[in-house]
């Protein structure tokens, strides 16, 4: 059973968090799509992940549950792991060609 807690009037309403989260996510998506620098693309992915985290926490507080917090930790862990792997990939890319401009890399088209 979901038990909705009475919302204090002075609290920031849920929609604001969700708008923030969505805005950050779109910024991340656009960053992934338009930027060429691999590091920046990477940072954009982090922004998207954290945008999700914000919405998770917001719902968690709103519904008075604790699953969202656990999930956000989970996401952080995955993000940390991803960062380590991703940076390693970027370094190996840089070793192949002295650039990290993603437009120079189309080796997936074999």
């Amino acid at each position, binding site marked *: 059973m979901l038990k909705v807690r009475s919302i204090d009037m002075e609290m920031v309403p849920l929609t604001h968090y969700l708008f923030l989260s969505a805005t950050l996510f779109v910024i991340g*998506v656009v960053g*992934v799509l338009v930027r060429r620098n691999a590091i920046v*693309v990477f940072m954009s992915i982090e922004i998207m992940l954290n945008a999700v985290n914000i919405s998770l926490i917001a719902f968690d507080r709103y519904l008075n549950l604790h699953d969202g917090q656990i999930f956000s930790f989970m996401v952080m862990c995955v993000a940390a792991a991803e960062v380590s792997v991703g940076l390693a990939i970027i370094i190996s890319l840089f070793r192949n060609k002295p650039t990290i401009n*993603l437009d120079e890399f189309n*080796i*997936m*088209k074999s």
Partner: protein
Amino acid sequence: MLLKLTSLVPLYPLIGCIINGFFGLRIGKNAVGLIAAGSVGLSFLTTLIIFIGLVMTPAEERVFEQVLFTWMAVGDFTAEFGFQVDPLSMTMMLFVTGVGFLIHVYSIGYMHEEYSFYRFFAYMNLFMFSMLLLIMGNNFLIMFIGWEGVGCCSYFLIGYYFEKKSACDAGTKAFVMNRVGDFAFLLAVMYIFNIFGSIDFTTVFHAAPEKLIYDSETVTIITMLLFVGACGKSAQIPLYTWLPDAMEGPTPVSALIHAATMVTAGVYMVVRCNALFALAPITMWTVAFIGGATAIFAATIGMTQFDIKRVLAYSTVSQIGYMFMAVGVGAYTAAIFHMVTHAFFKACLFLGSGSVIHGLHGEQDMRKMGALKSHMPITFVTFFVSTLAIAGIFPLSGFFSKDEILYHALMDGNFILWGMGITGALLTAFYMFRLVFMTFFGKSNVDPQVHPHESPKIMTMPLVILAGLAFFGGALGIPLFHGWHILHNWLEPVFYFDMPSALEHSAHLLHEQGKHAPSWSHLLQPEGDHNVWVEIALMLLSLSIAVAGIFGAYICYIKKPHLPDLLTEGQWGYDLVKNKYDVDEIYDETIVKPTLEGSKLLWKECDAKGIDGAVNGTAQILGWLSNQARNFQSGFVRNYALFMVVGFIGLLIISL
């Protein structure tokens, strides 16, 4: 007990075929010949044993069925693999295996120089197997397997010398023409199943008088289709042109397949289905007239040919015409009688001509023969006896069988038919003696390089036996005296048909349909007594006709050898007959060429452009689409991410 051996009869040739076909090259010619002839000989012995068993059973119970297994069962349809032995199939089995054995023995000598000796005998044994299936099957489907099998073996053996184009063409022609008939036969079998719900001989023929109305469209269509099938196999007008061309095959093949056995399969089939044909007077009338017309038509062509085997081929077509004439007037016994005697004398004639060709190292043109009787005494005597038999000279076998047919044709009240028969008899005597005089008498026209010689014993022995059978075979059916016609007494139970009750059933069925049955009372009048005096008069007449034919041939080819040339010089009628009435050319123009052109059109327009175009077009369109889709795979990660986003948005829109 003896009858239980039935299934062994076709088994021996099959085993022989398998051994010769697969190991023939390795086991050597002597073994191949021994196996081939031995297996057919064993079949013949087994048939004799079964014959004894059948004779010992009472006449009414002389139908023995042996079902080996159920071949297929689909819904209401069941087809058994079984054999049926009754007096009719017994008669066929006896002469097919007997004559077949003699021809196999003869072939060992005749084919000895051939490289693919084993191939020849494998096909011959396969033919014997198929032929035995055809005559022993207990339902239409087994008969059809045999029917197709003999056609197939005929094709193989006509094209035995496959390096010769004419032989290949002849084989194809025979096969295609047979297919026309086979198709009609198959349609008839389907129609029969549709009406009776069974294809078993016993069931169908028992139910025929109860389910089919006398002279109704259904029974006429069925019997007409069956008859078209018989025409194809038995070389009757209009499907006869393949048989003369089939002479491209080795001579023993012509003797076995294209004279004694396979070509008579059509007659056998019609006789076997006599219960259906008895209900279809229109078909009977057609059968009789097609038979009579073929008898005369082929005989006239036979008078003008110079190839020794072609003359015999046209003679075969003509003689089978006689058999159909007999069937058409309801004289089934006479048809079978003539079939048996014809097998004897025609096999002997073909083997004799083979012996002549063998002795002349492959010469077939009668203009380059002559005066061979001193060089080949045994061949000459046997050939002469068989010629007397086919010409209908008393007391040889052909005299009795042909006379019986003519008698029945006349008793049927049909003078035109009888006239056709008697004219055919005159022509037969003429062209057969023309053949004998040109080959064995007169002065020698043999190429001086060639030294004619008598054939080895292995070839002359079968000739002597067959000539003996051709001489004495008439004893099977001596007319005039009641009870002396052995074949008639033997076959009578098979041909028993209760016409009054069949007509009663028909009237009843018509009444149920609310129609009025026509008066059939004239059909029920008792047959007139066997008129001995008419028969004796007919015998004398046909004997004098035969002698007249022989005398004519004597005048033309011995007395005044220049007479034929003088008579035929520049006659357009003669040229027409010599060109076989241009029937081949007419068929070429009206049927073969349009079919070929149509096929070419279908091939080039429909197949190459339409079907291939559709298939290739599909491939091309797919190729083009794939080429377009290839552009999506740019290799840039960001493009893939873009597609992902677009996809997500798309999914979102759909789910909203």
